[in-house]
C-alpha cells in the first residue's frame, strides 16, 4: 500500500490541492439526497469530523440476463448521490467516486480497490489523510456489501 502511494506520488507529481480536487470540492458532482435509493450508508471520520452519506439506486437487470431474479453481481448503479460535510479531500473523493461509479455493476465496483481510489484522486495522500481520501470509497463498499 505504502509503495503504491509512493508510486502514485511520483507518477502524478501533483500536490493534494490540484485544481481538479478544488473544483470538485467547491462544486461537488452528484451532491444531494436520492429519495428513491435502494440502499444508503453513512460513515464518519473522527479524525477530521467528516461525515458523508452515499445513496445508491440499482438497476436490477442491467445486463438483460434471463435468470429470474438476475444474480446480484449484475446489478448496476442507475443513480448515485451523496451528502455530507468534510475536507477538500473527502468531498472531492466522494464527488469523483460517485461520478465514476455510475452505470458500473456491483461486480466491477467490488473489485475497485483502495489503490484504484487513490489513483482516481491522483494526488499525494499522506498516511494521516488516507482516511479522508478513502471515506467515500469505504461507504460505497458498504453499500455494495449490504445489498
Amino acid at each position: 500500500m505504502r509503495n503504491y502511494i509512493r508510486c502514485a506520488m511520483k507518477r502524478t507529481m501533483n500536490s493534494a490541492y490540484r485544481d481538479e480536487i478544488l473544483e470538485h470540492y467547491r462544486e461537488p458532482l452528484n451532491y444531494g439526497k436520492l429519495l428513491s435509493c435502494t440502499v444508503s450508508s453513512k460513515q464518519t471520520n473522527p479524525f477530521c469530523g467528516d461525515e458523508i452519506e452515499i445513496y445508491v439506486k440499482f438497476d436490477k437487470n442491467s445486463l438483460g440476463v434471463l435468470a429470474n431474479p438476475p444474480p446480484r453481481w449484475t446489478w448496476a448503479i442507475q443513480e448515485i448521490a451523496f451528502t455530507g460535510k468534510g475536507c477538500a479531500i473527502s468531498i472531492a473523493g466522494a464527488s469523483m467516486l460517485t461520478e465514476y461509479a455510475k452505470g458500473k455493476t456491483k461486480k466491477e465496483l467490488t473489485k475497485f480497490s483502495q489503490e484504484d481510489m487513490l489513483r482516481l484522486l491522483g494526488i499525494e495522500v499522506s498516511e494521516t489523510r488516507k482516511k479522508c481520501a478513502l471515506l467515500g470509497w469505504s461507504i460505497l463498499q458498504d453499500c455494495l456489501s449490504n445489498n
Partner: protein
Amino acid sequence: MKKKDFPIFQNNKDLVYLDSAATSQKPQVVLDAMMDYYKNYNANVRRGLYPIAEKATAKVEEARDKVSEFINAEDPSEIIFVRNATEAINIVVESYTYPSIKEGEEIATTIMEHHSNFVPWQQLAIKKFLKFGYLDFDHNGNLFFVDELIKKAKSLAITHASNVLGTINPIKEIIRNARKINKDIVILVDGAQSVPHMKVDVQDLDCDFFVFSGHKMMASTGIGVLYGKKKLLSRMEPFLYGGQMIQEVAIDRSTFADIPYRFEAGTLDIAGIISLGVAVDYLEKLGMEAIRNHEKKLTRYCLDQMEKIEGITLYGPKNAEEKGGIIAFNIERIHPHDIAQVLGDRNICIRAGHHCAMPLHTRLGVSATCRVSFGIYNETEDVDILVKGIQKVKKIFKA
C-alpha cells in the same frame, strides 16, 4: 528566545514549529544528558551495587528532587514517575477514586478537558453507576463555577490550562471556593499545558493531585509525573504490581514499598527521568516568569495579526493575560485539515482536528479547529510566516 539551543531548527532551516501544545522541541542539553546516560552509566536503578548503577540511581533521585522543588511539593516522595499525564490520571481514578466511591455518588469535571482527563472519569462513572457532572464555560472560554455540583461531588478533575482555548483557569480560586463548600472534595489538576509555561506551586494551589507530561516541557517522550499529597498517596493501593514496588513477597502474600516506589513497578524510563531533571534545570535557568512573558508577547502579537484576517473565528479568551500560548481558530468555508495541510506543505506546523477534546468542540458547535501553540523557541517572525501562509490558503481555496 532560545532557538539556537534546539538542534531541530538547525537541521530544518525553514521549520516554523507552532505545535508545542502537542509536544515541545528538545534542547541540546536534554539530548546530551540522555546520551550521556546510555553511553557512560547505563544501568538499572535501585538494584545494582556497582558504581554506574549507584550513579544512575542517584541521577533518578536527583531528578525527583528537582521536579519536587520545581512544583514546590512538600516532599520528593510525593513525586511519582509515570509515563505521562494520561497514565497519572488513570492511576488516580483506579487506585484512589475507584475503591473509595460508591454507587450513586457524584464526580465532577469540566467540558474543556482533554480526553485524558475526561474519559477515565466518564468510564469510572459508567462502571460504578456514578453521577457524572461537568462545569461549562462562557463564550470567552471561562468556566462557570456551579456550587450545587461542587457541593455534592466526591472529586473534581480540572485542567489548569485548556489545550484548545488556551484559557488559564483560576485554579487557586476555584480550589479555595470548592473547599469552602465541600471540605472532603478531592481535586485533580491536569497541568500538562501549564507546567511548561508558567510557575506552578502545588502547595499554594492546594490541589490533591497534579499531573503533567515531560515531553511537553522539553524532556523526552515516555516520562510524566503524578504529584499527590502524601496522606492521599499513602492510602492508595498500587496500580501496577511487579518488580521494585514490593517490600516483601511470600508465596501467598506480598507487602508493598512505601511511596513513591509503590507506584513505580518495573524498570522505569531512566533516560526519560534524567532528561526531565535536565529539562527542569533548563526551564528554571530561563526563568518561568521570562518564559511566560515571552509567550504572552507572542500570543498578543498573534491575536492582533489574526484578528485582521477576514473570515476568521478565534476561540477562547482574546486577552493574552488570560490565556497560555494557544490560539484555536477556523476560517470560513475552509476545513481545518485543509488549512493545516496547505500550511504543512510549507513547513508551517500547526494542528487541526479536535485536539483530543471532542466534548469541547461539540460545545463550540464545530467538528474541528486549527490550533497554533507557542514554545520559547518561537519568535514574532513565525507568526508573520503563519499569517502569510493563511493568506495563501485563502487564495488557493478562493475563500
